Structures are given as C-alpha cells and as structure tokens.
C-alpha cells in the first residue's frame, strides 16, 4: 500500500522531528534519565550489591546509616537498600506489564467500538462506562482477594481496572480518523476491516494512546503500592509496595522504613509523568512548530 503511505504523512510526524522535540524539553530528558537510572539500578544493581533482600542481616529497626547500612534495616533486620534495589525491578515490571494489559484491553475495545459503531459501540462503551464508574482500588482489591496476592494476580487486577481511559481515547481517535479521506481511499482500494483497523487507523491514533499508556505505568506503580499498603502484596517478592506493606504497622516507630520506599515510588512516578508529558508534546502534531 505504497500509495497510502503518502497520504498518511500529514498525520504522523517524522520520527526525527519527534526525537528533536522530545530531547529539546529539559523536563522530559530529566525524567528519561531518572527512569533509565532506576531501571539500571533494578536490573544491574543486584550484581554490585548482592545482599539478598530477604536475608536478616542486622538488628531490626537500625536507622539509616547504622553500621554501613545506608538506608537502615526493617522490622526483621532486612537491608532496606537491598530491598529498594531489588524492588525497583519488580515495581517497574508490574508497572509496565499492568499498563500493557490495560493498553491491550483498552485498545481492543476502543478500536472496535470506534470503527464499527452501532450496537457494537453501544455495548462496548456501556461496558467501559461500567468499569469507569467502579471505584478502581476497591475493585482491584476484590480481584486480588479472590485470586490471592501473587504478582500475576496483582498485575492483572491493576490492568483490568485501568483500561477504561485507554478505551475511550482510542474510540474517539477512531471516530475522528475513520472519516478521513485516506481511510476511504484505503477502503476503496480493497482493504478489509481488520487491515483498516490495525494497519491504517491504529498507527495514526497511536500518539495519544502511547501518552496515556505511559501515564498508566506510573499509575500502576502507585496502585501496587496502594494495594500493598492495605496488606495485599505478594509476600514472596520484594517490591516497593511490599516493603511499605510489611512495615506499615511500625510507621510510628520507624518512619523511615515506610518513607524510603515511598520516596522511591514518588521519584519513579514523577519521572514517568515527565516522560509522558514530553511524549505528548513530541507526538502531538498540533504542537509541531513550537
């Protein structure tokens, strides 16, 4: 479909220009650097700091700085620095996979609703609204409580409750794009519905979906911490939320055990938001000449 590519050009910005806009923004670059730093810490850090986060290595509740333990120890005497390093991997993994899950569901539902219209749209959008009005944390709690708190169930639960916004954005983009000339052209040149949805319209609707998904990663990390705070975390995997959850009852006696992972979450979510903002500016065709 070489002919079509020419017509798509007005909507998708050239890759080079996207990169330029993104890297011109200081905040976006800062966010990206922080994010890469955290990811490197999570994935390579354990090689340089091999203390097992589950090992009881020192006196419980040793405040940060005690005897070489930079961030202190928790209520069982486990090294909090090691928990932060190892927890980064899991927290980020949960964040990205949950966002991927909600993106998958949201794009699927939103694109079909937007493309087909009629009763398909009615049904799918009522379903979306149903999920949108449910109190998300409560619903996620129910799912985790039903299926037990493992990393998988937590990830799926977060994904399952946060896809509604993606679905709505996808639908609105589809509604707009499917009326454009190049779609009509593609249809008249014999493309079937599936090709139209996934090869023609979706690439052109990608920008806002990518931005929304990026923001969902941050939301998912906070979500996991929220569930953990309520005691619904996987006790066998160290994530930042799990660190908060297991130390929560000692919050008045050893505040640092909860604030340190809290700060880690805060920085990560902030970085993700900055990157998301940068992506938004870079991908938005209307902001091209800024």
């Amino acid at each position, binding site marked *: 479909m070489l002919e079509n590519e020419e017509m798509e050009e007005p909507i998708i910005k050239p890759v080079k220009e996207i990169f330029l806009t993104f890297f011109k923004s200081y905040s976006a670059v800062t966010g990206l650097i922080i994010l890469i730093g955290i990811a490197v810490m999570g994935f390579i850090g354990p090689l340089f700091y091999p203390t097992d986060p589950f090992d*009881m290595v020192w006196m419980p509740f040793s405040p940060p700085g005690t005897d070489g333990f930079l961030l202190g120890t928790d*209520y069982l*005497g486990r090294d909090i620095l090691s928990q932060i390093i190892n927890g980064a991997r899991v927290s980020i993994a949960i964040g990205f996979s949950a966002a991927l899950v909600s993106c998958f569901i949201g794009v699927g539902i939103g694109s079909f609703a937007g493309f087909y219209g009629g009763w398909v749209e009615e049904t799918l959008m009522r379903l979306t609204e149903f999920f949108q009005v449910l109190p998300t944390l409560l619903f996620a709690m129910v799912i985790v409580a039903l299926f037990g708190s493992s990393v998988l169930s937590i990830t799926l639960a977060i994904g399952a409750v946060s896809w509604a916004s993606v679905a709505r954005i996808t639908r609105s983009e589809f509604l707009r794009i499917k009326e454009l000339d190049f779609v009509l052209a593609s249809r008249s040149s014999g493309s079937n519905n599936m090709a139209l949805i996934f090869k023609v319209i979706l690439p052109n609707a990608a920008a806002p979906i990518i931005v929304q998904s990026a923001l969902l990663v941050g939301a998912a990390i906070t979500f996991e911490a929220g569930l953990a705070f309520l*005691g619904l975390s996987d006790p066998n995997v160290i994530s930042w939320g799990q660190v908060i959850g297991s130390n929560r009852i000692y919050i008045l*006696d050893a505040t640092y055990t909860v604030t340190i992972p809290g700060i880690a979450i805060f920085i990560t979510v902030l970085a993700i938001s900055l990157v998301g903002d940068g992506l938004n500016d870079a991908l938005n065709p209307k902001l091209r000449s800024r």
Partner: protein
Amino acid sequence: MKKHFLKTLLLTATLIFTSLGVSFAEPKKGGTLIAAVGNNPRHLNPAVQSGIVTGFPGAQLFATPIRYDNNWEPQPYLAESWEISDGGKTVKLNLVKDAVFHDGVPIKSSDVKFSLETIKKHHPFKTMFAPVVSVETPDEHTAVLKLSSPHPALMLAMSSQLMAIIPEHVYGDGQDPKTHPQNSENVVGSGPFKLVEFKSGEHIILERFDDFFIDGRPYLDKMVLKIIRDPATRTIGLENGEIDFYAFENVPTNINRLKKNANLNVTPDGYAAIGPIDWLAFNTKSGKTADVNVRRAIAYAIDRNFILKAIMLGVADEARTGIHPGSPYYEPDVEAYDIDIDKANKILDDAGYKKGSDGMRFGLNVDFGWPGLRPNAEYTKAALKKIGIDVTVRQSADFPTWAQTVSNHNFDLTWDTVFNWGDPVIGVHRTYQTSNIKKGVIWSNTQQYSNPKVDAIMEKAGVENNMDKRKALYSELQKMLANDLPVYWTNTLPYHTIYSNKVGNPPMGIWATSSPMDMTYIKE
C-alpha cells in the same frame, strides 16, 4: 542535708498515704463505664455462642454457678456452695435463695438443668460437659450433676461465659436456642446487668439490675459498649478520653503507644484462663514436615526471642508449650529449641536432606491465620533460608479460605493463635487428640498428630481429681509433645487491658471481660 532528708521523708510519706488512699478507697456506686469492643457479636447469649466478643456482654447479662478469683480458686456466685462426692462423679450445687432473672422470675434449679442441657447440645465446646449424664433437681435450690466419670474441668466450665444460666421460661419455648430472637433483644438474663439496647455494629447498652442477688452490686449504673472495629479509632478514643476501657488489645505498637499516656493504665493481667498462644503448626502426616527431624530443625532455626523482641516489641511472654504460662499446669521445663542454626543444619544433613547447588534443600509453604501473624510468616521465610529451606509465604484471601486450607490438611506450616479456654480439657486436648482429627473442622487436630501414649495421658489427666497428680500428668504431656513437636509454640498473644485512671477494679481475674464486672466502679 538534714533538711533535705526530712523533706524527702515527708514526700515519701505523703506518696505512700496517697497511694494507700487510692488502693483502699471504697468502691463508689453509680457512674457509667464507656467501653469499646473490637468486633460485632453475633448475639448476646453465651450459652449457645463461644468467643470473647459475645463473652463480654454475655458475662454481664448472665450469671454462672461459680466464678474464679485471681489465683485460680473457685468462688461462690450463683451457687453459694457446692459439694463434690462419689470420687468426683456427683457435684451438688446449692443455689443462692433469692436470685431472680431480669424479669423477676426466681432462678430455680430447673433453670440450671435446662441451661446445662442447652449448652451441652448447642455450644461448640463439646468436651466441657461431655461426662455429665444427668442433672437432678431434688428441690428448687439444689441441682445435682451426675457424671459418668470424674471431670476436673467441670469447675472452670461452670464459670466465666461458659455456663450461662438462662431462663427456661424464655428460651425453653421450643424455638432453636441458636437463633432465638431473645438472644439479641429483650434478653432475660441472670447477671448483674440487664440489656437496654443492642444495636448491631454500633453499641450495646447495659444497665444495673437492681434485684441482682449480691447486695449492693453492681457498682456501675450503666455500661456502654461501643463496637469499634478499627484499632486506630479505638486507640485515639482511649487517648482523648472518649473510651474508658478496652480489653483484648493485641497490637504491640498500640500497646506501647498507650503505655506512654499518663491517663491510661495498660496491663497484661487477666488473660490466664483465656490463654491465647501463638504457634507454628506442622502438617505431621504429609510432606517433608511429616519427618520429626524436619520439624525439630525448623524449631531450632526459628528464634523465639527474636519474635518476642522484634515482632512483639517486648509486650508478649514466652510460651514453651501448648498450655498458657499463666495456667497452673504450665511446664516450662521442656525442650525449648532455643535458636541453634548449626544444630538445625546438622539435623537436616544427618536426616539426608542435602543442599542443592543453590544452597537450598527443599521448599515449604507457610500460611497464617490472621493478618497479625503476617510478620511471623515473613520472618519464617527469612529464618528458614539459613538452614536451606525455601519458604513460600501464602497469603490467604480471607479467614474462611485459610480455615478451609488448613482444616483440609493442605498445608506444610501455618501460624495460628489458639485459646486454652481455662481447663486443658476444653482448649488444649483438641489440638493433639487422635480422635479429634476432623477434616474440615478448624482448630481440631489439623496437624493430624497421632501418638497413642499422648492420647492415653490426656485421657488420664482429664479424669484425675487430685491436683498434684493432674499437674504431673500434664507436665509429662507437655514434655512428650515438645519432643514430638506437632506444633512449635512461641509466645502468648499479648492481650492487654487498657483503662483510664477513673476506672476502679477492672476485671483482673483469669477470665478478663468474660467475667462479671459487678465490682468495677468509676472513681470520683
């Protein structure tokens, strides 16, 4: 110097007199006690409902034949005296003559008979009155219990919330006592307080019963029991004086926080007969824990002192056996399995559990019965890693899920809190008896532990009337259990009573609030 000494002397004297003045003050009549309860009782009739939540209002509304003092000595209550004869097989209760129910109808021996039969039929604690074959009522104020065998547990079973005397003319109307409408409203009791209102989930209001059979009691005019489930709300209520009294607090951080408050008194006394013990139970029939060597190695690897100091923050006591340390039958001189990682590793090596290339020998699951035990489960994971056991912590969705898992024997290790309920026959035997391996029943012998010798000792101790001989039997039992280790006992659940300075005579006996609070009063 001399002047200073005199000053000190004077100050000391003043202090002594003031403190004497407080401790010998006459209890004052009148006043309202605002108490908190941590859960919503299903109803208020302890004759057909177990548990400390029903026990608190239940023991105020209903009197029992006897009560216990702080030293485990039975005292007259609704029975002014009793005679035990026929080698313990006949127990005669002489009831107080002028006792009446809250509706004015006299309390007769036939009510005692009716109550005991109802409890025997409907109360979950079947061992309490199992040997009682019949109750004879030669006259209105005499009830004679005939037993098939001696039953020393009977005395404790006739106290506290366990043998509430309920009126036959109300609860004997043919309706199912477990769902009788008057279990929750218009309760006709026999105890020091009568029910004004029970609003489920909100409060229970009790009022002084003026015709109570002990003259001048109760001292309080009114008791308001506020049902507050959230620990933080209760703690704040106690701190700002909205609540005068709360029993059964067990969150270590809360206890330590409330201890710092000068207006509040915090005490662990009063729970010896309730007897709550935290323990790690093993599946002794299937999996790796069926091997006693594995169980012993695990016990050596888990540091009881660490649990006491780090998890319980110093507010709980050590419990080395399945009998509460406050009980006269407690035997501390048993194999305690004090922390010894080398020994634990050696036991496992010798038993043939070789470490793999990753330093692990095998994996086990650990469950826990309620959220308060999650730290213990996480600790178990960390502690057993040191001896090469890879522990997976299983978090159950809720209590019924856990109860189902454990009672159907689908577990390796589980943390749990279990109550003694006074006599070992009521709350201890059930955990170790071969006959009590009941699939699907929680707090039965879910360990599936079976040792004919242990069964025989329990059977003997259950009918032994001589206190010293009985103690000796239970001592032997505890030693044998510590050796076989179906359960590794660690500590008492740190139940604490918190009361404000204006509360006099809070219940400090062996049954905490599951005993009548007719002597409690409000100062000034």
